[in-house]
């Protein structure tokens, strides 16, 4: 169980670092509190939705800013607005702040400023995606390790028994996250 505790400690420390660095804010913490046994990975699933939308919007803005016949700043503004809303809803603080800065250049119809902001926004998005995917991997890994230990202990008559309900739930979570359950014969 020391390994599980260590991994869980790593998860907590990594999660705290995301807050200290301003990658995520309290909104993200609130969302994690909504996870329960019926939806243990919903934050990861919603984050995936956010990543898809974010990439689409950044791509759309890049294309709009490259138009030779003139930049459609209204379209840029709508993309920024949407991204500001979704990033604030998921607690992606630095992405949200990048959108706020971007908005001022879009309002001023400043193409060069918008290009710089788009670059900054892309950087913040990549950082967020990388960090959150790492966080989710550590979370799944600790659960997987826990179940492995449980299964091992079941094969060892001297080990303390684990509740079946808990094991079944953890196995479901691991499979739902794309993992597999090792079988000890």
């Amino acid at each position, binding site marked *: 169980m020391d390994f599980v505790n260590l991994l869980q400690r790593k998860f907590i420390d990594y999660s705290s670092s995301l807050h200290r660095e301003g990658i995520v804010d309290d909104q993200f913490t609130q969302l994690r509190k909504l996870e329960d046994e019926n939806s243990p990975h919903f934050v990861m699933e919603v984050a995936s*939705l956010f990543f898809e939308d974010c990439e689409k919007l950044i791509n759309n803005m890049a294309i709009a800013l490259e138009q030779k016949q003139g930049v459609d700043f209204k379209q840029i503004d709508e993309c920024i607005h*949407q991204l500001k*809303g*979704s990033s*604030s*809803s998921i607690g992606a603080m630095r992405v949200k702040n990048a959108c706020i800065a971007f908005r001022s250049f879009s309002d001023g119809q400043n193409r060069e400023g918008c290009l710089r902001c788009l670059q900054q926004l892309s950087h913040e998005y990549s950082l967020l995606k990388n960090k959150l995917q790492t966080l989710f991997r550590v979370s799944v890994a600790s659960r997987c390790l826990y179940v492995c230990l449980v299964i091992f202990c079941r094969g060892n008559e001297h080990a303390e028994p684990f509740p079946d309900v808990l094991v079944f739930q953890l196995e479901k979570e691991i499979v739902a996250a794309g993992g597999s359950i090792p079988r000890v014969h």
Partner: protein
Amino acid sequence: MAPTLPSGDQSSDQDNWDNGRLARKRQLLTEIVLRNRLTALVVDGDTTCRVLEQLLLRSYGVQTQGVDNGRDAVTLIASGVKFNLIIIDMILPILNGLEKATRQIRDMGVHCKMLGVTACSGESERQAFLAAGVDVFIEKPLDPEHLVPILRELDGQ
């Protein structure tokens, strides 16, 4: 916003006490048990926002439906479906949330509570959204500290 500790390696006992009281106050604000069955419609063109807002409402036991554009919201309400609460974004695809959808919903005689939840933060936008017919203007994200008092009111608590 999470309470922040002052700079320095060690926080004082007073700081810890204040932070604890603040945390407890926030916890009390967000605890609620609904006595009645409440229903809500979430109108937001952004999938992330719509999913999160519906999930937050469901966590309090509110039955929710979601649509991603103004026209579908108006059509749904025109079909006779009733809601205790409508959460609507300002900028929507097809039928804009501000000038069109909100006004049309109110013009149909719908008097339920409407929350305008939007990424816009300007005072002029706030005034325009309130003038269009929303009861409350909330800058995203929709959070428990804004939502819970409204749910309490709707529940008659």
